[in-house]
Structure formats: C-alpha cells, structure tokens
C-alpha cells in the first residue's frame, strides 16, 4: 500500500492526459476538486491487486458523458455519496486511467476513506463502456448504478455490455449529459487477470513517449457526429505531411499511404510551446506540435482486443 498525496496530483494529471491519447477530457477541474477534498480529508490509500482480500467488493467508477459539462455544472458530491451508500464497496477503482477519469475513484475515496486499486480497465482512454479488459475477460457488466449531480439514481441490469453502453448513454443524456457510473463490479478473487494492473503508478511515473515528428497543425477538418468529435488534422512536419485521424481519441497517423501509428497504440500530441499534451478539443490551426507514441497496453494486442479497439472497430480501413 502507498499513500497518494496532494503533491502527486499534478503528475497524475499530466500522465492521465498523455495516456488519454487525445481523449478522456481535460482533468483540470477533477484535479482541483480532488485537491480540495484531500485538503479536508487527507491522503488516499492506494493498494495493489495482491493486497485484495477474496471477498472485497471492488467497484470500478467512471464519469460518463461530456467531461466539459462538469466545467459548467460543477459536481455536487451526491454522485459518489449516494453511489457508495447504495453499493457499499470495500475497494474503488477508476475504470479508465486516460483523461479526467483518472480522478474519478479518487473523488469518491477522499471522504469515504476507502482504498483505491492501482489498476484500471483500459490502460488508456477509449469512448465506449464495452471497450475494457473486463469485457475481454467475460465479466458481468451489470448490475450497474448511475447517479447524477442532483442525486437521481438508476440501477441497470442488461444482457451484455454493449446493451449497457446503449441504455446508459441514453440515460446520461437525460441526466444532463454527465453522470457517475459503477459497473463491472467484482469480488476481490475475480480481479486478477481482469484488470490492467499498475495504471495509477504508470500515470504517475515518468512516461517517455517515442518521438515521431515535429511540425505545425494546418488544415483541421472536423465535425461532431453522434457525440464523437471526428476529424482529421494535417501536420506539416520535419518528416513530411502527416495526417492524424481522431474520434475524441487520436486513432491513426499516416504519412501518405504509410501508417506511422494506429489504435490501440497511444498517440500523444504535445503543444511545443507549453510542453503539455493536447486533447482533441484543443486542436487549432497554427499550433506547433510534437507527435509521439506509447505502446498499447498489452491486453489490446490480442486478436479479440484488436477486434474491439483496432482501427476496424472505428470504421478505419487500413
């Protein structure tokens, strides 16, 4: 076990944004709220998978919907207060380490004193609930519980994860386009092998993405389709003209016909002036960028993994 302190939060924010591969939303507001809560309630305990007890109830948490909503409709705390009261977990886990969700379990842990597992279900960010290690390991996605900032709560039981994604997505819109969801609940004995271990530690560590090219963003072509920011941007770079395709997360970088990097490998676009990673919402003409990459989490490199989150899953034909 280790303790997460306020001093760790900036590093976590940076690491989470890098692992977000352009998606997952800006962690800024979540980081600020986490800090506020930790100032009241103290450091957060982080435990590893081998420290779990067999009958622990491990509850993965995720904010669902548009991260930008929470910048305007600030969170109330009822989201996790009510969820914890209903579900009664003994251990919490952020379902997704990429982007703002790296902080979701921490928000629930701060006041409750519950430990947070050093793990997640994705190893990066992906947009849909079934894109997770638990799905690959045939875990049951439901019962799932959703709570919004007003305290409205919903319990769902579905036949499979994709159906959960569809119903929960519609419910999220009815809840003002943002809510907290707990899903893929597991007993301590079921966790090993079902999650991506060490995600928090990884996000806190000194990540060293591999440099691919330096250049300037020219020609942004994007639109919002079915809730996903889809588009492509051209980078005029020292390695030639590179095209970057994204659907919230950056999915593919090509130079002419040559694929430089593709999902599930992580793509990082660093703003050269500020030295910070850019989420896909922040792209604008004229930005000087560095295109970098990190290898995909191991779970996605299998045939089943590729089927779920490879280029074809996003409608990209290579």
């Amino acid at each position, binding site marked *: 076990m280790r303790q997460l302190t306020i001093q760790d939060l900036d590093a976590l924010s940076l690491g989470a944004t890098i692992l977000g591969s352009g998606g997952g939303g800006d962690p800024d*507001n979540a980081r600020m709220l986490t800090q506020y809560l930790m100032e009241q309630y103290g450091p957060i305990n982080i435990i590893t998978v081998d420290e779990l007890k067999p009958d622990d109830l491990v509850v993965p948490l995720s904010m669902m919907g548009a991260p930008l*909503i929470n910048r305007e409709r*600030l969170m109330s705390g009822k989201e996790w207060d009510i969820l914890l009261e209903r579900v009664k977990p003994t251990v919490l886990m952020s379902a997704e380490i990429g982007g703002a969700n790296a902080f979701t379990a921490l928000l629930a842990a701060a006041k409750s004193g519950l430990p947070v597992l050093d793990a997640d279900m994705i190893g990066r960010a992906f947009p849909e609930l079934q894109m997770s290690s638990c799905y690959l390991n045939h875990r049951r996605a439901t019962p799932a519980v959703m709570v919004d*900032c*007003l305290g409205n709560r919903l319990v769902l039981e579905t036949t499979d994860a994709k159906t959960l994604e569809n119903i929960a997505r519609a419910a999220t819109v009815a809840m*003002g386009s943002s809510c907290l969801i707990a899903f893929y609940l597991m007993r301590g004995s079921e966790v090993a092998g079902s999650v991506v271990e060490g995600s928090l530690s990884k996000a806190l560590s000194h990540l060293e993405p591999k440099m691919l090219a330096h250049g300037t963003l020219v020609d942004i072509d994007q*639109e*919002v389709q079915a809730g996903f*920011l889809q588009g492509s941007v051209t980078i005029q770079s020292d390695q030639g003209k590179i095209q970057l395709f994204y659907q*919230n997360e950056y999915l593919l970088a090509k130079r002419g016909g040559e694929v430089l990097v593709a999902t599930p490998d992580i793509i990082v676009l660093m703003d050269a002036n500020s030295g910070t990673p850019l989420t896909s919402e922040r792209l604008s003409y004229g930005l000087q960028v560095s295109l970098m990459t990190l290898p995909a989490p191991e779970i996605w490199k299998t045939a089943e993994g590729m089927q779920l989150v490879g280029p074809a899953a996003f409608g990209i034909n290579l």
Partner: protein
Amino acid sequence: MNIIGIDIGGTNTDAVLVNKENIILSSVKYPTTEDISVGFSEALKQLQPYDAESIFLGTTHATNAILKRKGLYRVGLIRIAGQRPLLPPAYGWPRDLREAVLGGVETIDGGFECHGGPLTPLSNAKDAIERLLEKGVESIAIVGVFSPINGEQEKQIAELVGQRIPISLSSEIGGIGFIERENSTLLNAALKKVMQTGFTSLQKAAGSIPLKITQNDGSLIDMARAIEYPVLTISAGPTNSFMGGVRLAGLDHAIVVDIGGTSTDVGLVRKGFPIRSVNQSHIGGVMLNFPMPDVCSIAMGGRDLVLKQLDQLIAPLQKKGEVPVLFVGGGSALLPASYFKKGYQKPPYFTVANAYGAALAEISGTVDTVVSLRNREEVLHGLYEMAQQRAVDLGANPATLRLIDQQIIPYSYVPNQMARVVIRYSGKRVNRPH
C-alpha cells in the same frame, strides 16, 4: 478629425495624437499620479493643440487594484446552482485577495442544463439576499449554471436586489466555464468601487471630448460600460502595446517585448493580433476565461531587467524561425545597442506604442454560448449575425466587420452535437475609415 490615444500605466501616462491616416502627430509622456486624473489632465494639456474627436484610453488601474488589494468592494455572491456545487468559490485564490473580496456566499436552487432546460426550479432568493446584506457586503455577484445560454434567472435575482447595491451578472461578463466566470464576476463586483471613482474623474478631466476605454481584447467600450464591467479592462495594457508595436513597425507577425518601469511583458502577434489564451488566462493568481493576450511577464523593468531572463522568454517564440522581435515601452530605451542582434528592432515612437495601440482600437462583438451543431451551417450563420449585431450596437461600422476569432469546442461522448461556440467580430468605429 484626430484621435488621442492614452495609456495610464503604473509608472507613466503616455499620450499620442493620431490623425485619420493613423500617423502620429505628437506624443507626450508624463509620470502617473496617485489620482490618475491629474496625470491624465497634464498629459492632455501638453499634447495641445489638438482637434480631437475622441480619447481612447487603456489603463492598468483595475489590474493594480487587484494586485494591491486596494479600493475593492466586499462582495456578496449568489450561486444559482440547484445541484449545490462541492467546490467553494474563490478556491485557489491568494488568501489575502479572497479575504478582501469575498464577504459572503449563498447558494440557491436553479440553473440550467446544457440543452437549455431547467436544472432545478428557481428558489426565492429574498432571504439569501437579506443574509448577505446583513453581513455588510457592498456589491453583489450573481452566477448561475449555464447562464450564458439564458440570463433570465440572474436578471430575476437582480430585480430582487433592486437598486440597493451594485450588481454584477455573470451572464453579461463571461462565457462557459463556471469557476472562471465566477472569478471574473467576483472581481468585477469588487472593482466597481475604484473604477467608478477613477473613470468618473477621468471623464471629468476629458471635458467635452468623448472618452472610450479599451478592453481585454483591445477593442473599445464606452465609459458607462467600463464602469459597469471594469473587469473587462484589466489586460488592455499589454494588448495595446503589442498591437501598437506591430503597427508602428509595419508588420503583421512579430514577437513584442514591452519593457515598462516595473515589469516587462512578452507576447506573440500573428496576423496583426496578439495570440490569445482563452482557457488559461489569469490575473494575480485567479483563473479567468477572457480571451486575454498570451503574455509572459517578468516583474522587472527599466534598469533592473536581466537580459538573460528576457532571452529565455523570447527563445521559445522564435522556434518557428526568423520572427522579428520588437521592443517597445519606456524601458526599451535603456537597452544597450549591443543587445540588438539581427531581427531585433525598436520601431519609431516605440516608447508610446501602448498609447498608439489604444488610438487604433476597434469595436468587437462576441458570442460565447452552447448550441447544437445539428444544422451546423444555419446555426453558425445565426451566431455570426448575433456577434456582428453586438459589434454594430456598440458602434462598429458594419462595412468594416471581420471575423477575428472562431472556436468550436464540442461536447464529446454525447449525441446532439452539442458544442461551445465562441465567435468574435471586430470592426472600425463608424466614421473612421482606416
């Protein structure tokens, strides 16, 4: 008819007289006085004779009030937020500023969702207002969830306050982003005290010549609006210096270094406008969401300026290659000749670039809201027209309007193609051909 551009800085009050072709006819530098209207009057006197139709003024007076925590009202905040936000107001502010400004907080039910429907029904604010008044607050700030989409609730609460004390409505001050907009509204409410007296005294000193104020993006607002929304004027200074500097050098693209008596600002101008940081602008440690120029500042000026530190600020902006570096401001006169390597220059009238920038100021209209982009072309067209109309209402010549900023920030992971859209149009004042 000519225009007088004036910049009241921390150290000096600069004034220029500019003709219709934007040529500087004369310039004056006078030490800034404790009562800013005295230095202002003296500078005007020394600028005579002039045949001026207007005075355009930029000043750091509001910025200084915040930085010094002097002359600020104690503010009572009303949050219209039915979900009851967990994060308190003024979180992360320097403690002394928070204590000087925040006199009381009341949260009431109400607010909107991103699609425009109600978050919760609006509760009666009467008791909340009474409690704030009992605490002795001198100015009220009202901030509602998603109020930039619909300002009605904030207006209703304002009516309950009535004429008792000054009121600041967040929907009229900032765009989407609750914390940043709340910060701006709190500062606005606090600044009304010093800016009311300051601007009124300047108005008197200007006499019969109309006086307009430059705001954060370098465009003009009239006195009544500046007194109502002083927070809009806080970073006009650097904007004026940067724009004045490039115009004096006849360039569109340059790094501008403004060396003053006590501080130095470095910024990048592209296509004639300083590059802006919408989401990360801040003043005195407080996060705001105005499009303010992306400025790097050193709290050193004049002879104290360490040239090595200055080089470190200039270097990253030069990454793209040969970008000219312009030096403006009184402190630039102290730079040794040996410092000026290739591409470094002091344009003519560099010591009064800020006043010149003010004289060139235009009028802008902005829209910052959340919409569905389902009928993208139609919706954007409507927003363009709204922004243009706002500029025209403020005195812009419609024939000179052009789009200077467009940002579309989509709300990911939800359908209906919701997005935050920021549109800004700028144009010359009516009767001003250039």
